């Protein structure tokens, strides 16, 4: 199945489950769907040893939906999301098949990925972080470490949707000039459209001598016009009318 069809299924699933469970973070989930589809279609597979770590654990529903699509677990399991006794807690959990590391507190994914990449240079590690998350100092500790040790088997993908929990990133702690900062830390930095499958595939797959940091420009709430680029949808789940409206326009 081509990526544009897969993303529709995933986005519909995310909207439906968020509506049912009244969960927050819908826009953060929609922002990374296309990246996850590309990673699991081309790079992290059941028959290879590459690993993926979702450091922005609050967007785990998107990951769970993608893992379900690629047959890591059943639809029945997916629809237990956030319910009593479910393994699918609302932040990424390593109790879920296909998830190797639990996250939820920001700034934990990158150091863990760095440790794995340091001792296992044969396999690739893909670590997806958020823009607001970069405020956490532990990321900068890890970035210095990864740059110093030239760990080019780690691919850091930044979901740069420009909105964090309370406000736009530039109003909270401006990250710019981000590319320059990362270059100076010893990274090969790419900046691409995070919703373009061809670009995502070719850039994530690029072999680099330096560790690769991929800034993906994304739209928070991508795919549902009335959710796009709004702080509100970091929190709000869609009601039934909004759900129907959103699904029709996918």
């Amino acid at each position, binding site marked *: 199945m081509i990526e544009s069809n897969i993303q529709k299924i995933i986005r519909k699933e995310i909207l439906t489950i968020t509506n049912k469970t009244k969960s927050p973070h819908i826009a953060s989930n929609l922002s990374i769907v296309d990246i996850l589809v590309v990673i699991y279609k081309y790079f992290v597979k059941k028959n290879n040893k590459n690993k993926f770590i979702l450091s922005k654990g609050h967007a785990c529903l998107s990951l769970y939906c993608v893992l379900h699509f690629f047959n890591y677990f059943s639809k029945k399991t997916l629809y237990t999301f956030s319910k009593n006794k479910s393994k699918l807690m609302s932040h990424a959990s*390593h109790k879920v098949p296909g998830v*190797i*590391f*639990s*996250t*939820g*507190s920001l*700034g*934990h994914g*990158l*150091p*863990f*990925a*760095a*440790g*794995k*990449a*340091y*001792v*296992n240079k044969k396999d690739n590690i893909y670590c997806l972080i958020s823009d607001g998350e970069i405020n956490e*100092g*532990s990321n900068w*500790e*890890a970035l*210095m*470490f990864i740059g110093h040790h030239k760990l080019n088997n780690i691919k850091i993908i930044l979901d740069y949707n420009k909105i964090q929990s309370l406000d736009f990133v530039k109003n909270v702690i401006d990250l710019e000039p981000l590319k320059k900062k990362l270059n100076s830390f010893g990274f090969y930095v790419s900046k691409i459209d995070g919703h373009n499958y061809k670009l995502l595939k070719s850039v994530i797959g690029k072999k680099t001598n330096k560790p690769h940091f991929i800034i993906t420009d994304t739209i928070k709430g991508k795919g549902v016009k009335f959710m796009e680029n709004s702080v509100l949808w970091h929190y709000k789940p869609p009601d039934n009318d909004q759900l129907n409206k959103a699904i029709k326009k996918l």
Partner: protein
Amino acid sequence: MRKKFIEIIYNKMKTNKKIFLIVGDLGFNLVEPIYKSYPKNFLNVGIAEQNMAGIAAGIASEGYHVFIYSIANFPTFRCAEQIRNDIDYHNLNVTIVSAGAGLSYGSLGYSHHALQDYALMRSFPNMEIISPGDDNELQDGLSYSFKNPGPKYLRLEKDNKKIFNYKWKKKYKFGGLRNIKFKSINKAIITTGPCIQKAVDLSNKKKFKEFSIYSLPIWSMKSKKKIKKQISKFKKILTIENHLEDGGFSSWMREVNGANTNIQISSMSLSSKVIGKVGSQDFLENQYYKIR
């Protein structure tokens, strides 16, 4: 004790390629033999404890037994959430090594005094505290950690402590109360960490002359049931620790005892008044130990 720790790890690395030591830019004149002989199993991650704990979790997830080494509060409080989420909740084989138990670094001040670390570490469900009283207990504690993978907190006195032999090895199985000196069946001083000498000194005093002395170098949330059985024979217990009473070993012992009123527990521990005071380890310990 730090030297002995490095010596044991060094010897273990000769046969086990999955032992990994990470330091937070500390260990001068101590860790050199390891990075010279086993550079692939050694990392200095710099002064970055959060990163150190996260990296340790990552390396442990690749099948290693990882030791992270730093002073007192740096490998514990500075990265408490990484220990909780990344190491303990993932039940990974990481031993957090804190050099400088209690007031070991006396004159360096409160940034270097480990007074609340038991409180933090014993609140994690998979974590086992290994707090050796001498080099024998350190050797046994490390052997225990090699045989029983999982999160451990190894708390080391900076300098060497007297070794207490008392031919205890025959009867003793690591993990329970280790008898140092037997005097009576139902009265006991129970120490953890480098406090055995304090117990010996106390037992020479009139008030405690009937008290037997035990050391408990390994304890945790998991071992409460086992220790409850072992202390059931006592009527009076005095615990000794180089830590604050609140959240420490004595608090743990009282939780172990639960609602049992047959045992009277008192504690000898450090007073919070020591915080901010200046002096050598001996000076501070003489001034700020309190029996309650």
